[in-house]
């Protein structure tokens, strides 16, 4: 158990270190004693915790989807652009402001949006698994195409949902409200973590996904329908991206297609890779992906709270990812040299 989650433990230590650092340097300097000073730090303030947990929820949901695709041995570069496109479509569905898109009630809009996302995932998976196109190319086209499409639809302006055809009261409390004092996005994230954990670590599907990521051919020779499983992974990625897109759209309240969700696919890949997913596939845990994403967001939070140069935060993020993967790579290197002596 301990050795199985070795990677995750290291990551947890990094996370705690960053959190403590932030707590210490954002402590309440007017407090009487150190303990209250730390407890009243800006990091631990209700507002920051709420904000941070919402961020973790929103970023975590699509990172989990990305994790599944990476574990299958693929990659999805289109997530950020897709979120811009879905956000745009969502607001048009609410306002009916586009000639091709009817205005509907928000609950119907959510259902339609999820279906659109699933269809796009199906298309990705079909092109990759059935037609045999490289995942990188297919989703790179998505990266360019979806954002371009969103920009074309809006004539490259921002889009809100103020003049929606139906009431949106329920929608706002549903997506941006709080449940038991926690942001809805975070609650949704927890639920989705549970589902993905079940699927990846306990179900037959998860076993097949890991086998396929490690050795697609051996999985196929075992009678596993690898095409179907790959397609499922891409659908999971776009559907989870869609759930995130809903939260993001409401959170930002207006979608600027040229900016919305920019580089999110890279944050997701970074989180998953930092969390121990291997880009060669077949490796990764839900706990790892959660921790990887959280570390990146807490780092960002630290930079904001402590007033470090925000441009420099990118450098710090880059170094953390590089360091994390370097450690991982070191292990892999040992593994590979071991295998060589075996097979020679």
């Amino acid at each position, binding site marked *: 158990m301990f050795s199985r989650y070795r990677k995750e433990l290291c990551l947890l230590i990094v996370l705690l270190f960053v959190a403590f650092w932030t707590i210490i340097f954002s402590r309440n300097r007017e407090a009487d004693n150190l303990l209250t000073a730390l407890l009243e730090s800006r990091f631990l303030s209700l507002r920051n915790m709420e904000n941070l947990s919402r961020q973790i929820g929103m970023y975590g949901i699509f990172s989990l989807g990305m994790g599944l695709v990476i574990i299958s041995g693929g990659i999805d570069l289109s997530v950020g652009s897709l979120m811009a496109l879905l956000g745009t479509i969502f607001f048009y569905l609410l306002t009916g402001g586009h000639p091709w898109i009817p205005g509907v009630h928000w609950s119907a809009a959510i259902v339609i949006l999820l279906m659109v996302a699933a269809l796009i995932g199906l298309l990705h998976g079909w092109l990759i698994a059935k037609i045999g196109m490289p995942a990188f190319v297919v989703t790179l086209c998505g990266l360019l195409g979806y954002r371009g499409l969103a920009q074309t639809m809006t004539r490259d302006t921002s889009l809100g949902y103020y003049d929606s055809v139906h009431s949106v009261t329920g929608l706002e409390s549903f997506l941006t409200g709080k449940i038991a004092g926690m942001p809805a996005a975070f609650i949704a994230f927890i639920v989705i973590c549970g589902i993905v954990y079940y699927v990846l670590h306990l179900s*037959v599907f998860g076993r097949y996904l*890991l*086998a396929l990521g490690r050795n697609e051919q051996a999985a*196929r020779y075992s009678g596993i329908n690898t095409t179907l499983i790959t397609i499922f992974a891409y659908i999971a990625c776009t559907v989870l991206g869609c759930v995130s897109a809903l939260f993001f759209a409401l959170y930002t309240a207006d979608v600027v297609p040229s900016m919305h969700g920019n580089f999110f696919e890279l944050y997701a890949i970074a989180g998953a890779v930092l969390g121990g997913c291997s880009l060669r596939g077949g490796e990764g845990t839900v706990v790892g992906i959660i921790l990887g994403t959280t570390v990146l967001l807490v780092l960002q939070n630290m930079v904001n709270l402590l007033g470090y140069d925000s441009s420099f935060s990118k450098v710090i993020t880059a170094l953390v990812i590089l360091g994390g993967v370097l450690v991982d790579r070191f292990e892999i290197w040992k593994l590979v040299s071991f295998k060589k002596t075996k097979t020679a």
Partner: protein
Amino acid sequence: MPALLQLKQISKSFGPVQALNGVDFAIEAGEVVGLIGENGAGKSTLMNLLGGMLQPTRGTISLDGTPVKITDAISAAQRGISFVHQELNLLDNLNVAGNIFLGREPRRYGCIDEGKLAAMTQPLLDQLGLDIAPDQSLVPLTNGQKQLVEIAKALSMDARILILDEPTSSLTIQETDTLLKLVETLRERGMAIIFITHRLTEIEKVANRVVALRDGELAGHLTRAETNRDAMISLMIGRDLSEVYPVLPTEIGDTVISIHALTTQRWPEGGASFAIREGEILGLAGLVGSGRSELAQAVFGVDVSPSGTVTVNGDTLKRGDITDAISHGVFLAPEDRKASGLVLEMSVRENMTLNSMFRFNRRSLIDVAKEKAQTEEWRCEFSVKAPDVEQPVGDLSGGNQQKVVLAKWMTLNPKVMIFDEPTRGIDMGARHEIYQTMVKLAKTGCAILMISSDMEELLGMSHRIGVMCEGHLTGILEPDQFSEESIMKLAVETAGKPAVSTK
């Protein structure tokens, strides 16, 4: 005078596995030494030590009496040791000259001097009697011609010691003859040649001396005068053939699987028709690349065959549908265990159940406890040597890996089991166990198709032997026709494609 090359007390271990144990070996200039041994005897390991791919755990390698350390392929080449591998290491996107001088191209103003390159290549090709132009593309060449290009590469490096690892395994009879003559010529010129092959007749023709390895140890020497088939086999095997190959079951029942005019994507013009009965083992022989594995993959449904039918107990299988094959009890233990048989990083447990998750599926959840108990039972039944079922299969020896593959399929009650090279790279002990497992399986009424390149194995383990050549089944031999010669004759039946000549 010290020998040109001398190996003293060479040992090599991979973790707990002792691949070579105190092997002595020497070769003089102008000598052809035939190196023989069963699969897994340590021939490849020994040659990889010479080629610089591996380092010995103990022992010394001396050239002209001076101990040397061969650290990599470059240092081997610098010392005049050239290694022609069994699988060709040529690049299809370069021409003949580019392949021969890869990494050593003559340069002019920083660019490759094509004129000089061709001029340097031509004499090498002439020397080998290879009638092709230096700028000939590699793609249309036959395997025999490619093999000669590899040898030209060795000559270009002024090799003094040439290692030929199974050079004839994909050659036709004519090409083999050419190669053997060339070996003779090179020997007369003073080259030392180590010739590794499974074809004992070639050794008889060409070797001055024979060295046999068995289970990582030196099994013995034979002089030219002593060299004959029986002597070589008894050295390699170290026991009677009857001890290695179990008695085959005699009760043959009704037809289980019949294959009619089945073609493969690789050989759409080919085709094979045959049937296998209950309890029968049909051996499938042929040269490397003759379409045997492709045929097996077509039957199993990995390869979508363009035409033909496979009928199992009256039902026709859907072409290119693995699930359909599996549901009819048709299973394949593939040729390349590491690439298609197993997921190396996964545990013994996970590999054994990858094809039978339905047994442990409780509302799409995996019943891990049940899975553990069951696979632990199978591990004992198939005597897989691993501390427990949580061990990654990548850590096991070849024989034990193959047992995991067998356990994986045999516990699903096969009706038709296809073994593709079941004992490649596996030591004698494990081979014996695998043969016994096959016989046990046949006794349950399973029809077995066994693809093998090992003549002894084919002759010792088959009720009948089918032979393939260029995608066609050229014949099926009955036991009274069994011989290495009759197999080879069928294996090159339609061979003799016109060789490419562009001069």
